[in-house]
C-alpha cells in the first residue's frame, strides 16, 4: 500500500468541508464518538442539521467564528491507498496556507461552485498549485444538484478552466462534476449525470499514478548528520545520514561531494536493518564512502557528471508568509535549503506578481503577507541549488527572520536562464 498526499483548496461556502466530510464519512473514517460529538454540538447550537464542518474545525476560535483558521491534516484509508489531506482554509490568509499544504502534496483538489463558475480564487488556487509544481490537479465542480445536473453548465466551466490552465504548468488535470452534499460522483459514480463518463473522485484519488513524480534521475543526497559512534565496537565507523532527495544510490557508485568537489565511491548504503542494494527518495539511509573525506551537515553527495550548481546567487519565486514584517531589498535573512542553513541578503526584488492577472509589477519594492515575487538573493555560503521544477526538495527553501525566528518566506529556485 502507498500514500497519496493531497491538498484541498476552495473559496468560502463552496462546500469544501462537506466534501471532506463526505469522503471521511463514506470511507467509514468518521467514528461514532466523533459523530456523536458533532451532533451534540450542532444540537446545542440550535442548528437544524448535523454540521459536518464541525468534524474538521477543531479549534475553539474556529468553532466560535465558523471559519477555518489554519491548515489541518487528516487521514483516511481505503483498501487501495492511504491518504493524507492537507485541509487548507479558503477564508483568510489563503495563499500562505495553500502554499504550505501544497508544498508536500502529490495532488491539489480545487473546488468551484457550479452556480458561480470560476471565480478569482479558483484561478488563484490553480496558479498556486502550478507554482508549487503539484503534479496532479483535480477540479471538482461542486453543487451539481443545484444546477439540475446540467451538462452544459459543467462543460462551460470545464472549458474555461482548461483554457486558463493551458497558460500554467499543470501536467495532469482532471475535472469531475460532483455534489458533495448528495454524494454524487464522490465515492461512487452518480446516476444523476449519465453524460459523465469519468471516474468518481475517490476512484481517481485511489488510482492516480504518483510513483513516477519523483526525480529518480539526478542523484541528490543532502548530508543531514554524521554518525560516528564513540564505541569500541564501531571504532572507525563514519556514516553520512540523510534522506535521499533524488536519484538512486548504489554501492560502488562514483560520487562527488559538494561544495568541496572531492570524489569517492559508495562503500555501502545502510539502514539499521542492514545494508540495502539501492536507496531512492524518500528513504532515510546512511551512506559510507571508500575514502576518508571531510564531509559535514549541509554538504551534498551527487554524481560527478550530474551536479546541482553551487551558487551564492539564487533567483527564486518567494511567497511571503509573515504578517508583521515585509520582505525588503537590502535586508538579511536566514535561509534554510536542504540541510544547509546560511544567511542571505535580498539583492533585488525583480517583480511582484499579481496572482489574479499574472501581471508583473516591476516597480514594487516590498512583498507583504501572501504576496509573491521574484527575487535575487546572495548567500554567505554556496547553496547546492537545483531548479524547483526539476526537484522540489533541492529546489525549495525557507527564509527565517533573524530577530523573531519566524518563518517568513517560502522560496522556489527559478530555472536558470529564465
Amino acid at each position, binding site marked *: 500500500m502507498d500514500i497519496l498526499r493531497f491538498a484541498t483548496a476552495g473559496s468560502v461556502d463552496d462546500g469544501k468541508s462537506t466534501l471532506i466530510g463526505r469522503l471521511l464519512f463514506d470511507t467509514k473514517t468518521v467514528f461514532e464518538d466523533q459523530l456523536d460529538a458533532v451532533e451534540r454540538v450542532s444540537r446545542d447550537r440550535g442548528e437544524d442539521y448535523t454540521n459536518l464542518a464541525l468534524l474538521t474545525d477543531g479549534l*475553539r476560535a474556529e468553532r466560535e467564528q465558523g471559519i477555518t483558521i489554519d491548515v489541518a491534516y487528516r487521514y483516511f484509508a481505503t483498501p487501495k491507498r492511504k491518504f493524507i489531506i492537507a485541509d487548507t482554509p479558503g477564508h483568510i490568509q489563503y495563499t500562505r496556507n495553500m502554499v504550505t499544504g501544497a508544498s508536500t502534496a502529490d495532488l491539489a483538489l480545487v473546488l468551484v461552485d457550479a452556480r458561480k463558475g470560476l471565480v478569482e480564487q479558483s484561478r488563484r488556487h490553480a496558479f498556486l498549485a502550478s507554482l508549487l509544481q503539484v503534479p496532479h490537479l483535480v477540479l471538482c465542480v461542486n453543487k451539481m444538484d443545484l444546477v439540475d445536473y446540467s451538462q452544459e453548465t459543467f462543460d462551460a466551466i470545464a472549458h474555461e478552466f482548461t483554457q486558463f490552465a493551458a497558460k500554467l504548468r499543470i501536467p495532469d488535470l482532471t475535472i469531475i462534476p460532483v455534489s458533495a452534499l448528495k454524494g454524487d460522483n464522490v465515492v461512487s459514480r452518480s446516476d444523476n449525470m449519465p453524460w459523465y463518463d469519468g471516474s468518481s473522485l475517490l476512484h481517481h484519488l485511489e488510482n492516480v499514478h504518483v510513483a513516477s513524480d519523483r526525480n529518480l534521475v539526478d542523484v541528490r543526497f543532502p548530508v543531514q548528520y554524521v554518525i560516528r559512534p564513540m564505541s569500541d565496537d564501531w571504532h572507525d565507523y563514519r556514516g553520512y545520514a540523510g534522506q535521499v532527495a533524488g536519484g538512486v544510490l548504489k554501492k560502488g557508485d562514483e560520487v562527488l561531494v559538494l561544495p568541496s568537489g572531492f570524489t569517492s565511491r559508495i562503500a555501502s548504503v545502510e539502514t539499521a536493518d542492514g545494508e540495502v542494494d539501492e536507496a531512492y527518495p524518500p*528513504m*532515510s539511509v546512511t551512506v559510507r564512502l571508500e575514502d576518508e573525506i571531510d564531509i559535514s551537515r549541509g554538504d551534498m553527495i551527487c554524481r560527478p557528471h550530474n551536479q546541482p550548481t553551487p551558487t551564492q546567487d539564487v533567483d527564486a519565486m518567494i511567497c511571503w508568509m509573515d504578517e508583521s514584517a515585509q520582505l525588503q531589498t537590502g535586508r538579511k535573512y536566514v535561509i534554510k535549503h536542504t540541510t544547509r542553513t546560511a544567511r542571505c541578503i535580498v539583492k533585488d526584488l525583480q517583480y511582484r506578481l499579481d496572482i489574479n492577472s499574472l501581471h508583473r509589477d516591476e516597480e514594487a519594492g516590498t512583498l507583504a503577507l501572501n504576496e509573491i515575487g521574484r527575487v535575487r538573493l546572495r548567500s554567505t555560503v554556496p547553496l547546492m541549488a537545483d531548479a524547483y521544477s526539476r526537484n522540489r526538495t533541492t529546489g525549495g527553501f525557507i527564509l527565517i527572520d533573524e530577530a523573531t525566528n519566524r518563518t517568513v518566506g517560502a522560496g522556489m529556485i527559478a530555472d536558470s536562464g529564465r
Partner: protein
Amino acid sequence: MTDTPNYQLSQLRVLEAESIHIMREVVAEFERPVLLFSGGKDSIVMLRIAQKAFHPARIPFAVMHVDTGHNFEEVLAFRDKRAKELGVQLIVASVQEAIDNGSVSEPPDGTRNRIQTPVLLDAIDKHRFNAIFGGARRDEDKARAKERIFSYRDEFGQWDPKNQRPELWNLYNGRVHVGDSMRVFPLSNWTELDIWQYISEEGIEIPSIYYAHDRETFVRDNMVYAVHDVCRPKAGEEVSVRRVRYRTVGDASLTAAVESDADTVEKVIEEVSTTRITERGATRGDDKFSEASMEDRKREGYF
C-alpha cells in the same frame, strides 16, 4: 510482481523515513533534546525509530517520563526494562514528589492529568531541554490535527494555535530564543492503525496490558475501568472480571479499557481496523470535560 516496482516504498516505510528525518534534524540542530517516554505504544515506536535514525551509534539523548504516580505497574516495569536495554538515561519527573513538596496540589477529584503540565515544564527548565519529542499523532484529536511537527512553545511552554510557524516541504525551522522550546512530533502523520502495523512488522514488544487479559473491572459513564488503588468503584458500581485490553495507557484513574479478545498483535490490528470508536473516545475520561479540552491543556503547555 517484482519486489520494488518503480522504487516504491510501503506507507509504513514512507512514514518511518519521514520520522527518522525529523529526529535527525532535531539532533543536528538542538543542543539538548529529550524524548518523552511513558512506556506506551507510541513512545515505544518513537524509541525504535530513534534507534534506527542513529544506528550504529546509541540514541543521542535521554528519555523522560512524567510519572503521575497513578500508572499501571506493568507499564512502569516495561518502561524501566526498555530504557535499560537501549542504554538510554531515564529521567523520571514525579508528580507525587511535586505534590509532596507543595509545588502543585492534588485536584479535589483525584485525577492528576492537569497537574502533569507544571511538573513537565519544571523538568524541562531544570534540565534545560530545548527540544522535546512527543509521540502525539494528528489523528488523535482535532486540536492535534492543527499542530505542526515542530511546535514552537514560548518561555511558559504555551502553544498558540493562531501563531504557528508555517511548515513547508521537509524544512523545519528549529530556531528558538533562550528559554523557548520546541515540541517535536515525529509520529504526526501516523494513525493508530499504522502504529500497530509497524509494531507487527518490526516485532516490537509492548506492555501486556495492550493485549486481552482478565481484570477486575466496573463500568462508569459507559466506560470500563479497572479496579486500581487510584480508581475504586463507588457504591452501586458493580465489580466483575472482564476480558479487556487497553488502547491507550495513561493515568489509571482516567484511562478506561475496552472489552476485547484480541490477545495477539494480528487480532489487535483486526480490531483496530474495524472499530467505530476513536482511541481517545473509547478510553479517555479526561477528553470529555469539554469540546476543546485538549486544546485548552495544550495552550497551558501540555503535550
